[in-house]
């Protein structure tokens, strides 16, 4: 699936959007997850993402396939960045298109919610004085 991408290059949201745009589609919804400058009030220098790539791609494909089927989408694209990602840069871009906008909103939210639960990608927050694997501990 050319729409499911893991890359260490900066994400291009326009490219992701274009890959699901279709002359027949009226509504297109996009989610962009940007790296925040703070976590619990503490300044973040940058994030470092690690992926178990073969499995992550497979799980991302599963999400897209399920979303397309469940909400009758024209298409869905999921692009995830790995490696070092700076503040304000996109870590993930998800775009989907459908004849009616309600379906795209639901499908896009489902995709990011599910990605955060099932896709084997890990992020480490790097601070001035140390680093932490996000969500590792309860």
């Amino acid at each position: 699936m050319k729409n499911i991408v893991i890359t260490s290059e900066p994400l291009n949201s326009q490219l992701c959007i274009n890959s699901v745009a279709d002359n027949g589609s009226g509504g297109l919804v996009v989610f962009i997850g940007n790296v925040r400058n703070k976590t619990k009030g503490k300044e973040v220098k940058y994030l470092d993402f690690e992926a178990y790539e073969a499995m992550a791609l497979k799980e991302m494909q599963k999400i897209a396939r399920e979303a397309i089927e469940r909400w009758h989408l024209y298409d869905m694209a999921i692009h995830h960045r790995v490696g070092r990602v700076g503040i304000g840069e996109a870590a993930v871009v998800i775009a989907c298109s459908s004849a009616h906008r309600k379906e795209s909103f639901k499908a896009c939210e489902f995709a990011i919610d599910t990605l955060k639960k099932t896709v084997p990608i890990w992020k480490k927050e790097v601070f001035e004085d140390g680093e932490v694997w996000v969500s590792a501990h309860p």
Partner: protein
Amino acid sequence: MKIQIIAFGIAKDIVGKKQMTLDFEGKSVGEVRTCLVNRFPEFEQLASLRFAVNTSYVDDSFELTENDEVVLIPPVSGG
């Protein structure tokens, strides 16, 4: 039984390397879990620890074969 362990994220920090051979008693993933927690007590502090074989999640009852590659999946945090 001997299997290959591949570790990501914090699991890699806990075992101290990306890849290792594990010699454990039994044949199920659950028994791998017990062996790992005994050897690396830090695993017990994680919010979760899942396992994957052949790029799919497997549960604790999954039965392994000699030299299988078992991937340790600590709590994911993509997006």
